[in-house]
């Protein structure tokens, strides 16, 4: 592979070093770049995404789910629902994938220093926040209170279960986990209810606090009014948009919401920015 190529569509090659099944159909890859130079020079920020390829099937877009504070590898997390993700799922430890990126903007973590943080995530939308969560936990003393409200339809649909346990055990994180009514098994020790309601119940203070929200459109729709009621301004709320992409670099023409290109102008936006967009996402 020519690392000095000027072909913007040429991916780096990475080896799958570990596979973790998060749920029956959601899988995490730990990836290590094959080219030593790339391994040493690859940097990214929390919130950025990449194009991952299964050669012979094509490319799919996911965030980089690991934290930039953990070097030497990256992680991605995907649900097997289409041609490319099914092909990725068929790969094994030691196999090669392509990685193009990192692309897009990121959470302005440095601007959050000294503030309290509230992470609100639903279902498979935890990965784009998980990178920021570990990023902040790895420099824990720079932040005030950290609250994580995470929910999924059922217990089985919760991703990063082992890390939820880590966060629960740490004394410096307030984890509130929940499942939708009916999604709880006999041993469930979390809340039962939809994320927006559980967030309202947890009622984190909005004073000097930033909220980071990722989830299905319906969850975001009902979460924003709750945050507003708690006193969060639109500038203090960050989210990511997850439109379909191909090129990832502002050319192929499909990820735009009005004149905003999610791949270049996003994927991270404040609630203020999202509200200024036409309703096309």
């Amino acid at each position, binding site marked *: *592979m*020519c690392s000095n*190529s*000027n*072909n*913007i*569509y*040429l*991916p780096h*090659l990475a080896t799958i070093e570990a596979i973790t099944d998060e749920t029956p159909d959601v899988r995490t890859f730990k990836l290590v770049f094959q080219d030593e130079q790339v391994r040493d020079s690859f940097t990214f920020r929390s919130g950025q995404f990449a194009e991952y*390829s*299964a*050669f*012979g*099937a*094509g*490319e*799919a877009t996911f965030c980089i789910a690991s934290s930039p504070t953990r070097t030497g590898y990256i992680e991605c997390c995907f*649900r097997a*629902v*289409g041609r490319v*993700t099914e*092909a990725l799922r068929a790969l094994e430890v030691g196999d*090669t994938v*392509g990685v193009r990126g990192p692309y897009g903007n990121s959470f302005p973590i440095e601007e959050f220093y000294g503030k309290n943080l509230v992470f609100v995530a639903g279902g498979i939308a935890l990965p784009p926040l998980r990178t920021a969560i570990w990023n902040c936990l790895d420099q824990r003393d720079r932040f005030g209170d950290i609250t994580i409200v995470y929910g999924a339809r059922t217990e089985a649909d919760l991703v990063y279960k082992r890390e939820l346990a880590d966060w629960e055990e740490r004394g410096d994180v307030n984890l509130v986990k929940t499942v939708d009514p009916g999604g709880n098994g006999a041993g469930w020790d979390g809340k039962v209810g939809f994320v927006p309601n559980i967030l309202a119940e947890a009622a984190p203070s909005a004073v000097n606090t930033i909220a980071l929200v990722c989830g*299905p*459109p319906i969850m975001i729709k009902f979460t924003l009014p709750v945050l507003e009621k708690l006193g969060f301004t639109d500038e203090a709320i960050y989210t990511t948009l*997850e*439109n*379909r992409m*191909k*090129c990832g*670099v*502002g*050319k*192929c*023409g*499909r*990820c*735009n*919401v*009005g*004149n905003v290109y999610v791949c*270049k102008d996003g994927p991270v936006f404040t609630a203020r920015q999202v509200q200024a967009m*036409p*309703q*096309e*996402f």
Partner: protein
Amino acid sequence: MPKTITEHNLRLLIDSLLKDRFRVVGPRLAGAMALYEPLAKGEELVLDQLPRRSAKEVFFPVCENILSFERTEAGLQVTDVDLSAMSETVLVGVRPCDAAAVPVLDEVFSWDYKDEFFLERRRKTTIIGMACTKSDDACFCSAVGLSPGETKGSDLFLTPLLGGGYGCQVLTDKGQQLLARYPKLFVDTVDARLAPLAGGTGDRLDLKRIKAWLDDNFESPLWNDIAERCAGCGACAFLCPACHCFDINDEGTTELGHRRKHWDACGFGKFTNHASGHNPRDLQNKRYRNRIMHKFKYYDDKFGQTLCTGCGRCIRHCPVGIDIAAILREIESRSQ
């Protein structure tokens, strides 16, 4: 003194270029229609037809390999495309609407990340534009601020003369170099008289007013009215000299294959479909709105240019008779 070239010498120019190992592309009969295709000799150049598809495919092919891969004993090997192998090309007989779209496309392919597949061809191509002396009902280049004599995008520009032959205008260094390479084919003419150019290419639209309306009318009943008929076939996008949406897909097996970049269209239902099944542009009216918005608002917001050169192909070939020029007039009339 103005340079001119006879039609005979224009064909000789093509033959000379071919002899000198240039790739020469121009309107050529391919079955019943003219297309911009590689010419094998000067005689093949078609001078009196607007090619069915635009000239964008000379820079941005319908489909092209962007890498190839093979699984070997040593592991997965990826091979880059050798862009330096692309040939020096002369694109001849290009209509003003097609030539003018090329610098418009430069913007998207060169901002931020550089798409060298487009840009390398661009660097290696000299464009000889040619004025139009006839038009048809669908032509509307003048409506979008261009004209049958528009030189935008051309390195050399030919204008038909009364009595035959062409007046030759040099617009860039590339054009000058081409002219200097074959000095004997071009002659200085004192009394060259230009033939009248095509008329009926549309009254000038106020694109600023149209954009002002688009700025305020993302939600409008107009989108439903227009798109009710749209079949979502994508023909307009594929024929358009400025549409550039593309897809990236793999062909082959997991053992051996290519990755390809190929034309796509925002009118297709699955264009924006998420893996979850959610589709931000789930209805044809939303897709048609994106087409108009991209051409006359978004591209202008981003690059200060309009993504339409009035070639009229989308009007000429729309199977359900959607007329973008009429839509623009309607929008202009609604804009205060």
